Every structure is written in structure tokens, then in C-alpha cells.
């Protein structure tokens, strides 16, 4: 009777930048794609994000970073997730992030990062494929 397992994703907006249009667009797109999206609003600290990710037992954390602080925020959240025993959680995201930085972050275990102009379908497909790979392996 247990139906298809739902993907739970935390859409998070860390730091001080107040531009949440992108986060809201992607949150709505994930919802329309059948995911359960937990949205926590603006100005989240890495500690708040990881605490929410653990309590909600999410599969994925997606962060929107437009402030330029991505080289601080992504590694910090990744580290806190690992420390909290949530290293099985995919950390992905998007924002204005230069290619070199994307490569550097991916090397640190962060998932794919999406830049401006990405269709929402690309992010949805990526998350769904990651999830089914995790759950068939």
C-alpha cells in the first residue's frame, strides 16, 4: 500500500540578501513537479538550515544565493550537515556563481549548482534523477 516515496526538499535562502523571487519560483516549480517543499523564508543562518533539514528529514537542500557569499555558505552548510549525520542529504542550489567557484564547490561535495537562465525543469530533472539513483543503488 505504501505509495511511491515522496521527495522532500528544503528550499533555503541563507544570509542577508533579500532577493527571494528565485527561491519562490523554484519552490513552486518543485511543488508542481510533485515534491514536498519546505520553505523557510529569508535570512536563514546555516545552523537554521541544517536544523530544519534534520528535523524535516529531507532528501535535498536547495539554497539560493545571490549575495556573492556562496564560497562561505555552501561549504559551511555542507560541513554542518555532515556533522549532524546528514551526509546522505544532497546539497544543491543556484544563484550568481562564477564557473570556477562552481567547480571548486563541487569538488567539496556540493551537488550541481544552477546559474541564471536555467529552466526550472533542469533542476527538477537533476533532483529526480539523483533521488532515483540513490534509491535503486
Amino acid at each position, binding site marked *: 500500500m505504501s505509495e511511491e516515496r515522496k521527495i522532500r526538499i528544503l528550499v533555503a535562502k541563507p544570509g542577508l540578501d533579500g532577493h527571494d523571487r528565485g527561491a519562490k519560483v523554484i519552490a*513552486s516549480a518543485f511543488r508542481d513537479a510533485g515534491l*514536498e*517543499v519546505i*520553505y523557510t523564508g529569508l535570512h536563514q543562518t546555516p*545552523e*537554521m538550515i541544517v*536544523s530544519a533539514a534534520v*528535523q524535516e*528529514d529531507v532528501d535535498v537542500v536547495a539554497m539560493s544565493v545571490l549575495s556573492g557569499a556562496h564560497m562561505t555558505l555552501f561549504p559551511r552548510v555542507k560541513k554542518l550537515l555532515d556533522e549532524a549525520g546528514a551526509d546522505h542529504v544532497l546539497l544543491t542550489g543556484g544563484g550568481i556563481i562564477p564557473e570556477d567557484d562552481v567547480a571548486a564547490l563541487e569538488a567539496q561535495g556540493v551537488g550541481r549548482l544552477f546559474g541564471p537562465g536555467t529552466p526550472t525543469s533542469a533542476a527538477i530533472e537533476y533532483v529526480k534523477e539523483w533521488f532515483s539513483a540513490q534509491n535503486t543503488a
Partner: protein
Amino acid sequence: MSRIETLDARTVELLARFRTGAVPALARAISVVEGQRPGFQALLHEVMASGPQARRIGFTGPPGAGKSSLVAAAATTYRVRDEHVGVVAVDPTSPYSGGALLGDRIRMNDVATDPGIFIRSMATRGSLGGLATTTKEVVDLMDGFGFARILIETVGVGQTELEITAAADTVVVVLVPESGDAIQAMKAGLMEIADVFVVNKADRPGSARLVKELRQALHLRAGSALKDIPAHHGVDLGRALKRERTTDSAAQEVEDWPVPVLTTNALTNEGVDDLVDAVERHRSWLVESGQLEERRRDRAEGRVRDVVNRELQRITWSSDEVRRLLGEGVLGIAGGEETPYSVARRITDALLR
């Protein structure tokens, strides 16, 4: 207590971590129950062995009334008293995409990193009663984990989503001045389930009027509309007369609970202490009147019925024979030789054989 099935290795390990108080284990246990994954009933059986301990408080009301903000404010108050608080917040699943946007945490950011508070968002996943299918069971998990208070927030409800009464000891109905007039309050449904009424956003125009109308409507229901006097202020003539009538009856009955109508402003914290006090008074009344025991018995009975129904459904629709009879029967209906009733009878007969 007897086991209901052998626990698999993964459940044993999860249960062991759960019992050490590991928060990730609680979070995972909730996912197991919510997804009705293999072993979830055995897990609940183990966790519920110690019986209900926590005080369960439900918050319900229309969308945008401020339920989440009020839950956060109440949780903060309980934390000041050093109580550990569990929160379950339910938001709707889209019937079209199956997805959900769970946004209750947005109003709870002030308490988000307090290790004494655990917040879990749930999507209704097709359930229509204002809660998710497994919300009550998730509350049991939180109870078993050791939270003293569990605050349950329903989806934004209309008039008939009343399942919260089966989940909470005390139901707080949250309204706003825009919620409508006394006629709404006299209709069946939401208005009948309140143990405490709260008019939130009380700084807005119309709140005094709504409070007055609610109190009048409550008097009408209690049959004590003799005077326009609020029930918990001063003399209430109707109640006084009633007491006179019943004093010589042998049973020392505890009086009916006088449903209070309070005002709050969740954003400024105004009235939140009064709300918490009212919930406390209701708790004392529940214990003294024997209602707590009664509500818990009703809850236990409802749960047994739910679990039996769920098992019967599972057994029925996973049976090969039933599937065969259904397939054949549908063809028979199309051919005019059968009706849905004759097919259903054959299936139930086969199950009972």
C-alpha cells in the same frame, strides 16, 4: 507487552537510537510512519507502549488567521518554562501534482534553532480532515520521544475539517476579525469544537464586535442567553440557575467547561500568556471532570478502528484472488450480467471464506 511482528534489523537500530534521544532518529521514525514504510506499525507499537504522557494542544482555523505565528508564540512561552515542545504543522497537498509547499516554518524562525523545540511539517497527502493521514501517529512518536507539550497545527480549514478533535486534548480555534459574524459562529462544525476561542490580530477593526458575538453565540448554545453577560466575567444567571437545579442530585458533577473567548496579537505577543493560562485551566478541567480519560479512550478506540480499516484495505486489495474477481466482475458488469453489488458480494464472500 506482546510484539506484533518481528522487528527487522533496521527498525531495531532506529528504535535504539530513538530511545537515546537522538533527534535524527525521531525525524527518520516520522518519515517511516508518514510513508507507511515496512515495519512502521511495529515501530509505533514499541514507542506507544508507555502510553500518552504529553499534553496535546491543537490549533485550527481559517487560512491566514495566524495559527503558525500563534504556535510559535506559545512554543516560546513553554520554552521559557523549560518544557520541551514538539510541533506538527500540516499544509495541503495539491490534488493535481501531488506536491506541497510547506510554509509553516516561515513563522517559526525565532524558535528554529532551539534544541528544546522540534518542528515537523507534514503534507496532507490526500487526507481531507485538516490533518495528514498519519499526523496522529506522528504525535504519538513525539510523545514517546519525550516532549511534554505537542502543538498540532491543522491546515487552514473551513467549517467541516474537524479531525483535530481526535488528535488533541485541547482545541484552540483561531479566528480573525475578518472571519465573519455570529451567524457563522452559530453554524455547525468548526465552532462546535473549540475548547478555547482566540480572536487573533486583535488590533484590527471589528475584533471587539467578533468577541462579543462569539460570547453571545456560546451562551445560546449553553442555553444561558438570559443576559448579555460574558460567561467567565461576573455573574452568569443561566449558570447560577442551572447549579441550583442540580445541587441536590447525588452526583457531584463538575461544571461544564465555560469556553473562553480571548484576544491575541501573535506578532507582539499580546494575550499569549492568557492563552497559555486558558489552555492550562482547560487541562485541569479535563482531569477533574474525567474528560481526559474519556477523550483518551475515544482516541484509542478511533485508532484501533483506523488501523483495522487500513489493514483490511491492504489485505483486500493485495489479494490475487480479489484482483481476479474484480477483473472478471468488471467485464461482467460491462456485459450486463453483473452489477457492482454482485461483484462486491463475491469479493467479500471470498475474503470471509
